[in-house]
């Protein structure tokens, strides 16, 4: 594995210029930022599933997140930075790819590429809008808040008065338009990741010949699992299981 001829290591400047300036470096940044966002998404999804336990559990969890102070802001900053890195490299790579085929084929055909892989730009773009709406909705309480003003604060068993985030979710998703919009949003995230998970592992060179068949199945399965975990909450509210 090692080079027989030892040479000086690359300096940090060279490393940055290679990661930023080469196709493989840009793709690696996209893959690493994507994987970090996936890790967050799974945690986020698990958090939402506490809606099934009840108002006490969910509001305790939401209050715990709100009270993290500096750590909360560090995580928020990190998520924004990762998203910017992901989108920046996606734009860079997409522009290069477009320029590489200036004249299109008259008979343009897809042979084996999956639906998810063919729609990465569209699914990613819509997911960006969805994330924006989601933040304006539940974080800044700017849009889609009809009915929020009537929700009183929630009294935890220990006597603490906290925001009733549980009730906000229920009120929101009792509106079929919002519930279906959210299910659609996480559906497109699932589509993005049905290709994204295995693609990022290939980009980072994890998929050697022994593991490849396994990961090619694992990627879409994990994406489907994430989609189901996210979609089940608005669905359960919509059909009245959570109320």
């Amino acid at each position, binding site marked *: *594995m*090692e*080079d*027989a*001829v*030892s*040479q*000086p*290591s*690359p*300096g940090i400047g*060279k*490393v940055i210029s*290679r*990661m930023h*300036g*080469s*196709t*493989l*470096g*840009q*793709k*690696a940044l996209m893959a690493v930022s994507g994987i970090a966002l996936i890790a967050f998404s799974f945690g986020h999804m698990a958090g939402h599933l506490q809606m099934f336990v009840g108002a006490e559990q969910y509001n305790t969890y939401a209050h715990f997140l709100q009270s993290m102070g500096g750590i909360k802001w560090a995580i928020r900053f990190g998520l924004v930075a990762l998203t910017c890195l992901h989108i920046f490299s996606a734009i860079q*790579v997409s522009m*290069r*790819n477009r*320029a*590489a*085929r*200036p*004249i*299109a*084929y*008259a*008979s*343009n*055909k*897809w*042979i*084996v*590429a999956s639906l998810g*892989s*063919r729609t*990465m730009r569209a699914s990613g773009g819509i997911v960006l809008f969805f994330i924006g709406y989601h933040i304006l909705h539940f974080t800044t309480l700017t849009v889609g808040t009809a009915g929020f003003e009537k929700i009183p604060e929630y009294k935890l068993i220990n006597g603490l008065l906290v925001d009733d985030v549980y009730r906000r979710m229920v009120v929101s998703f009792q509106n079929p338009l919002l519930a279906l919009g959210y299910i659609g949003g996480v559906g497109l995230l699932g589509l993005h990741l049905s*290709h994204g998970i*295995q*693609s990022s592992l*290939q*980009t*980072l*060179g*994890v*998929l*050697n*010949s022994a593991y*490849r068949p396994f990961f090619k199945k694992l990627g879409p399965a994990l994406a489907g699992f994430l989609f189901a975990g996210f979609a089940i909450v608005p669905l359960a509210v919509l059909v009245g299981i959570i109320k």
Partner: protein
Amino acid sequence: MNLTLKIWRQKDKATPGKFETYDAKDISPDMSFLEMLDVVSERAQANGQEPCAFDHDCREGICGMCSLVINGVPHGPEAATTTCQLHMRKFKDGDNIVIEPWRASAFPVLRDLVVDRSAFDRIQQKGGFVSINTGGTPDGNAIPISKKEADLAMDAASCIGCGACVAACKNASAMLFVGAKVSQYMHLPQGQAERSRRVLAMVEQHDAEGFGACSNFQECEAVCPKEISVRVIAEMNRDYLRAALVGTDA
């Protein structure tokens, strides 16, 4: 059999091209695709028309010179087959066949269906070799190499440099080609000395030629006449990242 051909015609690099339609009558199903084009060209020439230019050499599926995107698929509808080894029995009487050159900014059209693939040569020259003064022929098996590694190297080395992977890729990326050239040395002891330098320099040249990045569509693998697997791309990616982050300075 009788066919209708829609063929890309282009005078030279600078002149914009266009499709022209040809009737190909009385074609034998036993002809190869290139023999069919020979016949059509001869008939056109007999009528005083300019024959259509297309690349070919060995016509045995080993040299990598033939090309052509046939109905949207590089090397045509038969898997693991070069255009020269494709036969007309794969088509039906009355078929319309669209024939286009490889399309990539890094493969400019020189004339009709002929493209300039010297970008591949320049990538090869950056590291697709082992710098050793060979001297006399070494004894067979003087350097033991496991069957598994030898097979992986041989599979990668079967790339004939045809460029179908670029033609099939929606991003016109040449990563399957570069991956094959990197991987064939990666699995051999002789390839280790220049391993980091090779992958860094070849990828750099790939980018400089204007090929796209890999989106892992795997369309390349589906059209490659030598069935090179995209595992060579994963191997190249890993080696590139290792070399770029902690490897030697090329």
